[in-house]
C-alpha cells in the first residue's frame, strides 16, 4: 500500500469535489462518499492481507535531503486502527451533512476531505517535519468548516479554535526544530526521522522542556484541562459534520501525539512528568463530567463529556503499563464512535427543531421513538456500560492507573458517577419528560441516518464484547511503548 498515493487520493478527491459542484450541485457529496469508500476498501484490503502488524505499510521518498527531511509514511497496527476510524467517521460526516449543507457544497466537501487527508497524514507520518506539515494541513480546512458553515457564533468559535491550535502548533514546531538541532549537535547528522530521534540522547533540562512543548501542544488538542476551553465553543458552533470530525478524529490526534511522540521521544522526562500528567487527566475526567452536567445546550454537554472521556486517555498513557495503554487506545476508538454518534443526533435535532437548547426539548421519545432508543444506546455507552467499547477502555485505564497511583484513580473513578449523572440528565432533558411545544411533529430517523447509526452501534458492541483484535493489532507498538518505560 502506497501511503502517499493514499493521502493524495483524498486530496485529489477534495479538489474534484470542489469542482464537481459546478456540474451538479449534489455531485460533491457523491464524489466525497465515493472517495471515502474507495480508500476504506483499499485500507480494508491492506488490513486483510497484512501479516505483520508492526509495519503494515511503508512509503519513503527523499524530500529535502539537505535538512534530513523525507516523506516518510509508515503504518503500524496503531496507525491502522486510527486511520480506519478516520475513514469510517469521514463517511459518517459526509452522510450526516447530506442534507444539512446547502451552500457551497463543493467547497464543504473539499474542506472535509482535506481535513481527513491531514489527519491520515498525522497518523502515518514518521518524519517529524512532515508530521508538522500534516498537523497544519488538517487545521486550516477545519477552521473553514467552522467559520463558513457554523452556527450563530461561528466567527468567535472558529477564531478561538484557530488560535488555540495555532499556539499549540507553534510550540510543536519549536520543539521539533529544537529536538532535531539537539540531535545534530550531538551526532553531527541532521534528521527529522522518528526512528532516529527516538534513540537520540537529549540532555536532561532540555529534554524536559522539549517534552513539555510537545505535551502542551498535544494536550491542547486532546483537550485536557486547563487548555480545553476552545472545544465547547468549536463543537457547539461547528456544523454536524465538523463536530463529528472534531470530536471523533481531531481529538485523537492529540492523544496519538502523546502516545506516539511525547512518551517515546522523551521517556526520562515523561517519567519525571508522570504524576502531573496523570493529575491533569484525572482532573479532566471530573471537571469535564461536572461541567457537562451543568450545561443546557445539547452539543455543549456532549463537548464537555468529550473532555471527560479524553481525560481517561491522558491518564492511561501516563500510567504507562500494558493494561492502561491498551485501555487508552480502546477509549480513543470507542469515544470516537459514541461521541460522533451523539453529535450526529444533536445535528439531527437541530435540523428538526432549530435549537440545541435542552430546555426547549423534552418528551421527544413520543414523537421519535427510534431516535430516542438510539440516543439511549449512545448515552449509555458514554456512561460506560459494560458490554460496550467505552467500558473496556475506561475499565482498563482505571485498572492500569490503579497500579500506579491509587488516589488519582479514585478521583478519576468519581468520573464514573459523574458520567451517570450527566448522561442520564441529557436523556431526561431531551427525550423524556413532558413533550415540549412543537416537538410532536418531529420526524424520526430515516433509512440514511438509521443505517449509519446501526453501523456505529455494531462497532461499539463489537469493541465491547470482542475487543481482543484491537489489542492484538496495537500489541507491537504497545510492547515497545511499555518496554521503554518504568
Amino acid at each position, binding site marked *: 500500500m502506497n501511503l502517499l498515493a493514499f493521502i493524495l487520493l483524498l486530496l485529489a478527491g477534495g479538489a474534484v469535489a470542489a469542482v464537481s459542484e459546478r456540474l451538479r450541485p449534489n455531485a460533491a457529496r457523491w464524489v466525497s462518499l465515493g472517495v471515502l469508500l474507495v480508500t476504506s476498501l483499499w485500507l480494508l484490503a491492506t488490513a486483510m492481507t497484512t501479516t505483520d502488524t508492526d509495519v503494515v505499510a511503508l512509503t519513503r521518498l527523499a524530500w529535502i535531503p539537505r535538512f534530513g527531511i523525507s516523506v516518510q509514511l509508515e503504518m503500524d497496527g496503531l496507525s491502522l486502527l486510527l486511520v480506519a476510524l478516520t475513514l469510517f467517521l469521514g463517511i459518517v460526516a459526509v452522510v450526516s451533512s447530506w442534507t444539512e449543507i446547502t451552500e457551497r457544497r463543493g467547497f464543504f466537501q473539499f474542506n472535509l476531505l482535506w481535513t481527513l487527508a491531514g489527519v491520515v497524514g498525522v497518523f502515518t507520518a514518521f518524519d517529524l517535519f512532515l508530521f508538522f506539515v500534516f498537523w497544519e494541513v488538517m487545521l486550516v480546512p477545519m477552521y473553514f468548516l467552522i467559520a463558513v458553515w457554523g452556527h450563530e457564533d461561528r466567527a468567535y468559535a472558529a477564531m*478561538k479554535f484557530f488560535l488555540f491550535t495555532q499556539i499549540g502548533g507553534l510550540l510543536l514546531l519549536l520543539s521539533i526544530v529544537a529536538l532535531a538541532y539537539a540531535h545534530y549537535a550531538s551526532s553531527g547528522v541532521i534528521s527529522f526521522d522518528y526512528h532516529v530521534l527516538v534513540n537520540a540522547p537529549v540532555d536532561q533540562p532540555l529534554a524536559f522542556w522539549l517534552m513539555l512543548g510537545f505535551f502542551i501542544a498535544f494536550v491542547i488538542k486532546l483537550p485536557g*484541562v*486547563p487548555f*480545553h*476551553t476552545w472545544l*465547547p465553543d468549536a463543537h457547539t458552533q461547528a456544523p454536524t459534520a465538523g463536530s463529528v470530525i472534531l470530536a471523533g478524529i481531531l481529538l485523537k490526534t492529540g492523544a496519538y501525539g502523546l502516545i506516539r511522540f511525547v512518551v517515546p521521544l522523551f521517556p526520562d522526562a515523561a517519567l519525571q512528568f508522570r504524576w502531573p500528567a496523570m493529575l491533569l487527566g484525572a482532573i479532566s475526567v471530573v*471537571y469535564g463530567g*461536572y*461541567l457537562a*452536567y*451543568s*450545561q*443546557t445546550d445539547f452539543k455543549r454537554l456532549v463537548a464537555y463529556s468529550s473532555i471527560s472521556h479524553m481525560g481517561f486517555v491522558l491518564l492511561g498513557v501516563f500510567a504507562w*503499563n*500494558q*493494561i492502561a495503554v*491498551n485501555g487508552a487506545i480502546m477509549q480513543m476508538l470507542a469515544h470516537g464512535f459514541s461521541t460522533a454518534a451523539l453529535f450526529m443526533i444533536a445535528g439531527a435535532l437541530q435540523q428538526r427543531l432549530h435549537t440545541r437548547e435542552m430546555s426547549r426539548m423534552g*418528551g421527544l*421519545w*413520543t414523537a421519535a*421513538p*427510534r431516535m430516542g*432508543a438510539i440516543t*439511549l444506546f449512545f448515552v*449509555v455507552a458514554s456512561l460506560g*456500560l*459494560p*458490554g460496550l467499547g467505552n*467500558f*473496556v477502555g475506561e*475499565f*482498563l485505564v*482505571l*485498572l492500569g492507573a*490503579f*497500579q500506579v497511583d491509587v488516589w488519582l*484513580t*479514585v478521583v478519576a*473513578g*468519581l468520573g*464514573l*458517577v459523574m458520567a*451517570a*449523572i450527566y448522561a*442520564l*440528565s441529557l436523556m*431526561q432533558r431531551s*427525550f*423524556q*419528560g*413532558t*413533550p415540549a411545544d412543537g416537538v410532536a411533529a418531529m420526524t424520526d430517523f430515516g433509512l440514511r441516518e438509521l443505517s449509519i447509526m446501526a453501523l456505529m452501534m455494531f462497532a461499539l458492541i463489537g469493541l465491547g*464484547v*470482542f*475487543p*481482543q483484535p484491537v*489489542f492484538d493489532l496495537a500489541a507491537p507498538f504497545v510492547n515497545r511503548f511499555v518496554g521503554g518505560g518504568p
Partner: protein
Amino acid sequence: MSAPLQLLAWVPALPLIGFLILVVTEGRLGKLPVALVGVGSVGGAALLALLVSLRFVQSEQDVYVQTLWQWLAVDGFGPTIRLYFDGLAMVMVGVITGVGFLIHLYATGYMAEEEGYSRFFAYMNLFVFAMLMLVLGDNLLVLYLGWEGVGLCSYLLIGFFHTDPANGYAARKAFVVTRIGDTAMIFGLFLLVRELGSLDIQTVLHSAHASWPEGSSINTLIALLLLGGAVGKSAQLPLQTWLPDAMAGPTPVSALIHAATMVTAGVYLIARLNDIFLLSPAAHLVVACVGLATLLIAAFSALAQTDLKRILAYSTISQIGYMFFALGVGAWSAAIFHLLTHAFFKALLFLCAGSVILALHHEQNVLRMGGLWRKLPIPFFCMLVGAAALAALPLTSGYYSKHAILLTSFDAESIGPWFWGVASVAAFITGLYSTRMIFLVFFGTQKTEPHDRSGWNMTLPLLVLAVLALGGGWFGLNAVAGVLPDGGVKHGEHAAWLAWATTLIPIAGVLLGCVLYGYRKTESATDAAPQPLRGESIAGFLRGGWGFDSLYDALLVKPFVALARLMKGDPVDSVFVATAAVARLLHKITATTQSGQLRWYAASMGIGLAVALLLAVLV
C-alpha cells in the same frame, strides 16, 4: 459429558434473542406476537433451566463450567466469558427464570392497556438476560456486566412511563445511587486484580485463602468495597433511598426487579464471595450490622406508609436486611433460603397489589382502599398468604427461612442475643405492618369501587406464587443446604424457649395488628386525616424514611446542583477570556495612533527619521 448441560448457554441467550427481536421490530408487532416473544423467551429459558438443573442434580457434579470465549487478554489480565453453574447459581437461575416467567405472564395482562407494550417486554427480557449473566458469570467482570446491565434495565423500567418527569427523576436517582455503590465495588475489583492478579471467582477465593491471613487489612478493605456495591444494589443503609422511589415503575417491574431478583444481587454477591468475608471478621460484622440496622429502620418506615407499593418497598428493604443480617452472622444457607422464599412471597404480594391497583384505576393510597375482600377474592386470598409468609407465621415459607436466620443469629459470638433481640423486634413490627396492610386494603368500609379486570394470565401467576409462598419452605433448609458452606457457625441445639419465642413474636405482632387495625371499621371515610394527630410528626418522619432523603438532598444534591449552576460558564475559560480582553485593550490604546490620515503618518515618519539621524550624528 452430557448434551443437555451445554444448553446452559441458551438460558441467558433466549431472553437476549427475545430482546433483540423486540428491538428490531420496533414495536410494529401486534400485542400477541410481542407477548409470545417476550413471555416465550423467558418461559423457554425457565424450561431449559429446569432441564439443566435436573441433569445437573442427576450428574452429581459439584459444578458445571461452560466456557464461551475469552473476553480480553492484556498483560496477564484475561477475564473469560464463562458460565459457572453450581447449587447457588441453580437456585438463583431458578428464581430468575421461574418467578420471572410468572411475572412476565402476569404483565401481559397488567400492561395490556398501556402504551409501549413491546418496549416493556424488550426491557424485561434484557433484564432477565443481564440478571442471568450476573448469577452465571464465573468472572467478577462478567458479573459486573450483569450488575450494570440490571441497573440499566431497572433505570429504564422505573422510568418506563417517561412522560412524567417524576418517574424520570426516580429512575435517575435509582441509577445514580446504585452507581455510587458500583464505583466502590469496581475499586474492590481493582484491588483484587492488584493483590491476586485475577477476577476469576474461583481463583480469587482460592488465592485469597492462600495469600491472606485471617483479618488482614487489605482483605477487609476489599470486602468493604464489595459490600459497598452490594449495599447500593440491594438498597441497604446508607444507600437505601432509591428503592421506595423506584416504585414509580409498573408493578410487575417492582415485583421482578425490586423484590424478587435484582435487589437480591447484593446478597448473591456476598454469598458468592463468602470466603472473602469469612477471612475478614470485621467486614463480616459490618455486613451483619448493616443488615440489622436496615431491617429495623425499614420495618418502622413500612409501618407508616400510606402508599401500598411503598409499604411493600420498605418491607423489601427490611427483608433484604434480614438476608444481609443472615450473611453477616454466618447463616449462609438461611440467607439464600430467605432469598428464595422472599422471592416467592414478595413477588406474590406485589402482583396482588398490582391487581388491586389496576382494579382501582391506579389508586395506590391504602387509605382510599378498604373492604375489597369480597370484590377481589383471588387477590385477597393470595395477598393473605403472602402477608402471612412475610410476617413469618408458622407453616408458611417465610417462617422457615426467617426462623432459621433468627435462631442462628442467637449463636453469633458474644453479641448474639442482642442481634436476636433487635431482629425479633423487627419481626414483631413486620407482623404489625403486614396486618395493617391487609386490614386497610381489604377490610373496613369500601371507599373506591373496584373493577376486577384480571384474566387468567394474571390470576394464574398469583395462584402459582401463592402455592410457592405457602409451601416453598416445607422442604426446609435442606433444599438449599450444601449450596454454601455454613462456615464457622455451630448448629447447636437451641433452648426450647428460644425456638418458641422466635415463633411467637411475629404472631404477637399480627395479633396486635388485628387489635389496632381490625376494630377501626368506622375509620373516617374522608381520607384527609386518618392518622391520629398525636404522633403525626413521628409517623411523618417514619414515612419519609427517617429523613435520609432530606439529609442527602441538603448535604449532597443541592450543593452539587447549585455549584453546577455557578460553574456553567466554565471558570477556566475566564482566564482565556481575560487574556483576550487585555489584548483587546492594548489594541485600543495603540490603535489611536492609526488615525488613517496620511499627514500624521508622513509627519511621524519624518520626525522618526530626524530623530534617528540626530542620534546617528550625536552618538
